[in-house]
């Protein structure tokens, strides 16, 4: 693979960042419109209408939807084929920052010094997964601090079981209150180890809203969680209403017989995640 493949990969990353900064994927927009149709609380309705208007304004003016353009997370499903996805992502992040599409957010964790380019040690966050289909599939998610800061890991005991799991997830959303800018998408990772469950929770957020879990027990779990969260009454922005979440996504792994890790990762309504396939130099949106 020569330089042209690498350049195409960088351009693809940049294009995903541009879309993610200034717009929402269609499943999230549809979810927000559906939420407005069913919301009865007057303050809840004001907030949902503002959100929908904001999306239009951002797309029209090509400016960041939310000023917190977050930390960009990259996913690649590809062969380790001589292309360098980390470098492509890093260069794309720097360019998107220069274009004003990403606010310079990253700082050193202790000195809090801001390098100004959204990069730094271990960044950008890139995950390379085994290839799926032809070419390179890639996804970008912009993860703001408001929703990331209320992530939670619970190392439950097997005895707490599914009941304990549901209470833990619902409690996490309740205690997060308005901080993650509800309505949120709730990502849940069940099983594995502490770090694997966190990873699964984050990965689950890539799944489009209408796509339910492939396995019946987890489909039921997703539905139960969604119902319980939307009965909380927290509402858009934590100011009351029936729309607290747009959906719940669960992913799982087998785990140790003595463990039940449960990880919760919330994605705010500004669910800026886009996915595409790069094939023969062409970008196909998915």
């Amino acid at each position, binding site marked *: 693979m020569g330089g042209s493949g690498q350049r195409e990969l960088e351009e693809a990353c940049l294009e995903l960042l541009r879309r993610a900064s200034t717009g929402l994927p269609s499943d999230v927009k549809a979810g927000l419109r559906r939420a407005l149709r069913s919301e009865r609380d*007057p*303050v809840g309705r*004001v*907030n949902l*209408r*503002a*959100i929908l*208007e*904001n*999306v239009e*304004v*951002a797309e029209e*003016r090509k*400016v*960041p*939807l*939310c*000023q*917190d*353009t977050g930390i960009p997370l990259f996913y690649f499903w590809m062969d380790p084929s001589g292309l360098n996805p980390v470098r492509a992502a890093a260069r794309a992040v720097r360019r998107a920052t220069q274009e*004003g599409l990403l*606010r*310079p*957010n990253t*700082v050193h964790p202790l000195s*809090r010094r*801001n390098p*100004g380019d959204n990069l730094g040690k271990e960044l950008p966050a890139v995950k390379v997964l085994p290839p799926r289909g032809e070419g390179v599939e890639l996804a970008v998610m912009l993860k*703001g601090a*408001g929703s990331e*800061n209320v992530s939670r890991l619970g190392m439950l005991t097997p005895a707490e079981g599914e009941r304990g799991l549901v209470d833990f997830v619902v409690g996490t959303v*309740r*205690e997060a*209150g*308005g*901080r993650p*800018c509800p309505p949120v998408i709730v990502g849940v990772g069940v099983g594995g180890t502490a770090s694997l469950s966190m990873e699964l929770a984050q990965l689950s957020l890539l799944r489009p809203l209408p796509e339910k879990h492939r396995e019946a027990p987890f489909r039921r779990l997703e539905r139960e969680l969604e119902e319980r969260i939307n009965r*909380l*009454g*927290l*509402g*858009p*922005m*934590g*100011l*009351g209403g029936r729309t607290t979440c747009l959906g719940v996504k669960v992913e799982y792994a087998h785990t140790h017989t003595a463990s039940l890790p449960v990880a919760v990762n919330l994605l*705010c*309504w*500004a669910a800026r995640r886009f996915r595409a396939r790069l094939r023969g130099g062409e970008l196909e949106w998915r």
Partner: protein
Amino acid sequence: MEVKELSLPARRKDVGWLRAGDLLFLTGEVVTARDRAHLRMADLLSRGKELPVDLRDGALYHCGPAVRREGKEWRVLSAGPTTSSRVDPLLPRLLPRLGVRAVIGKGGVGEETKRVMKRMGCVYLAFPGGCGALAARAVKEVRGVHWLDLGQPEAMWVLEVRGLGPLVVAVDPSGRDLYEEVRRRMGA
């Protein structure tokens, strides 16, 4: 739900008619600050130093805007609110010294801050979280920027806004707090 308008600077009597749950559109000058600007304000004031801006009867906006330099001008691209609770511990001492009339943010503030706000006739206004493009559209001019050494989002931006909103009056002058009411209903 009533729709109201407010111009800044505002005296205590100008906000007396606001009620929790009202919808508000704001016109005038607002000053942004996040975590680090709050720390610096607190530090300067505790050492008897002056601040670069006068916030008396004005609005403190918990926000770190996304901006772009266009020639000599700054353009605000996106300017929604950030979570107020992170700076809440500093507010009970800071707000009376600043003399602000309104705090704009998201998520609300704690009990002690609310007591102080009630005493000084200061309201808390919730801007819809994440609606940065909507907020930026209401920004008519960047009047100035201070403390850029803290990084672009953490700097203090002085913004002239027209019809900034929809703001929900979340804590009104009587101390009624919408967030608190929602939490109580949830049993949290």
